[in-house]
């Protein structure tokens, strides 16, 4: 399989993640979508590292996974706080940004 197949997979995963982020009403669902998008990027990094015989991408991916975990923990903490304060985690009701 060539590089193109990996990149196509990454693009598809990214689009699925974006679709989730945009359409999911539940905040946890949105966080899941973000994870998908990050992982599509990881796939890209690993694929490029493999095909260009350079390990920098691999190492970078390890970092990304670590940070993703931390981000997920933070995101979930925010969601819990949000639920405590607003008594909801539905994204369409969280419209405080409105002017």
């Amino acid at each position, binding site marked *: 399989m060539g590089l193109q197949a990996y990149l196509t997979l990454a693009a598809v995963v990214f689009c699925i993640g*974006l679709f989730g*982020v*945009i359409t999911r009403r539940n905040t946890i669902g*949105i966080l899941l979508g973000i994870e998908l998008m990050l992982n599509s990027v990881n796939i890209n990094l690993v694929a490029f590292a493999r095909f260009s015989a350079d390990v920098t991408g691999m190492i970078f991916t390890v970092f990304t996974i670590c940070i993703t975990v931390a981000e997920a923990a933070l995101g979930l903490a925010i969601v819990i706080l949000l639920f405590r304060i607003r008594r909801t985690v539905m994204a*369409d009701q969280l419209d405080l*940004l409105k*002017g």
Partner: protein
Amino acid sequence: MTSDGMLPLAAILLHALSFLVLAVVYPLRRLGRPAAYFSILCAAGSLAAAFLAWQAHMGDAVSRLVWNWLPTQGQTLATVGVLADAESTIMLTLVALVACLVQLYSLGYLSEEPPASLGRYYTYQALFAFSMMGVVLAPNLLQLFICWELVGLCSYLLIGYWYYKPEAARAAVKAFWTTKLGDVGLTIGIVLLWRQAGTFDLTEMRVLVESGALPVAGLSLITFCIYLGAMGKSAQFPLHVWLPDAMEGPTPVSALIHAATMVTAGVYLLLRLEWLFALTPDVLLIVAWIGAFTALLAAVLACVQDDIKRVLAYSTVSQLGYMMTAIGAGFATAGFFHLLTHGIFKALLFLGAGAVIHAVHSNDLQHMGGLARRMPQTTIVFLIGTLSLAGIPLFGGFLSKEEILGAVWTGGLVGPFAVLMLVAFLTAFYMFRVVFLAFFGTGGLKASGYQASGHHAPAPHSHDVGGGRDHSHVPHDPPVSMSLPLWLLAVLSVAIGLYFTVAGPALPFGAEEAELHPPAWLMPAAVGVAVAGILLAWLTYQRRTINAASLAAAFGPIRYAAMRKFWLDDMFEALYGSVLLAFSRLVGWIDRYIVDGVLNVLSAWTLTSGDDLRTMQSGRAQDYVYGVAVGLVVLLLWVRLG
């Protein structure tokens, strides 16, 4: 030189001081009589200073005291100060004299006014005297114009002194508007003249004119524009309509402003610019003809009036026409001489009429009669004024009228001369009509009702109820504060007449009288028409040999037209009602619906589109992400395809 300039300056500043103190020191003004005393004191001081200034400027002495004002690059656009010469100081003395006497007289005439109103009255009076002196002494046209407008303002304020009377308020507005119409011309004239001459200063301008450096092309328009201003102020046809209505003000105000000083400002302006007008003989001809026509028109109108003040008002218009004709004939000093004598005897007549009104509580001649027995002093002084106005020898107005008639004849204006002779006849007639009806006749005493109910003046023409309610019901001579000015003016009227009869008609100023040689038949002719007028009035209103009704019938159409003021007021009203109001409505409509409409539509659009755009800001983070994603896709496509 400088000390001579200080005297007129003191005269003008005393009134300014009086005005400032009365205007600023509120409690003093509310006190009424003390404010009046203060103002009269200042006026007396001003009179003394003016008199001394006149003495110092006899002959050719000129003093000029100016300060820079309105500096522009490298030079001064305008100055303020005083320009005192023979003409201006003698005029200054007249203004100071009449102002002082009128203020004294008002003390008695307005004795029934509430103190606060009295204080207000004296504040206006002081402001008026200050501004009028500013006009008289102005060294440049800019200061003259400012003071000119201030004088107009004071006239408005004082006509509307009894502002709660609708007629007075209307008359004040009418006077203001009508004179303003002329002032538009004056403004344009002054600015055009400044473009032509490069200066506002009278002295510098005169040098330019006399050295021939001022281009004559287009000067006619300028002088005509300036004449328009004089026309409004000096009540020349067709802008004379405001002056009779201005009689709604207190009688002393009429005496000061609408007889002796302000209305003569137009004549004075033309006198000051005599050398400029001399360059434009065509405009002078217009001045002369309009002056003569005004004199005739107003004299005819005066014959049919029943209101004593209105007779005097039309007489003032008529005499102003006289002065204007003399100026138009090229003899401005003759007009000025008449201005001075007229100022004195017309003030006397008005104050005398005020004394009558004060006693009878009515303006209507039909309500008077036989007053000579009850008010002997007033009768004598009024008679002196009347004889002066009619131009009877030995009285003040005689010589100045002769001068004017001689000037007009010498100037070669036969038409205006004939008109003025007719006017002299009419003047004698209508003035003695007043005298016989008010002072000697027996008519009206019973009809008037002032015996029985006294202060309740008979309704239709009781405009001028100055006061005197505590007086007994029988009319009698006024108190001393009123009779003193009357006697002073009467003595002056006679003294001027006697002095010039003895000393010859040589004026204390101006050398140009030398060229005035009236024909020998002029004096007997002028006296003749005056006596004929008196005789006709005597026969009609005293002896009743000629029936007044049949006399009126003989002049049926003219009388009918004169009763309606020759439809001039109606014409102005129609003009105002149709053209001006319609135009204003049109402009108002355009402003409301087109100018405002465009702006309203624009602002409405902004509002609604803003409202619509607001819904984009849902506040939900997902919508924003969606926007970013779509924007990114669009951007990518654009980069790929574009």
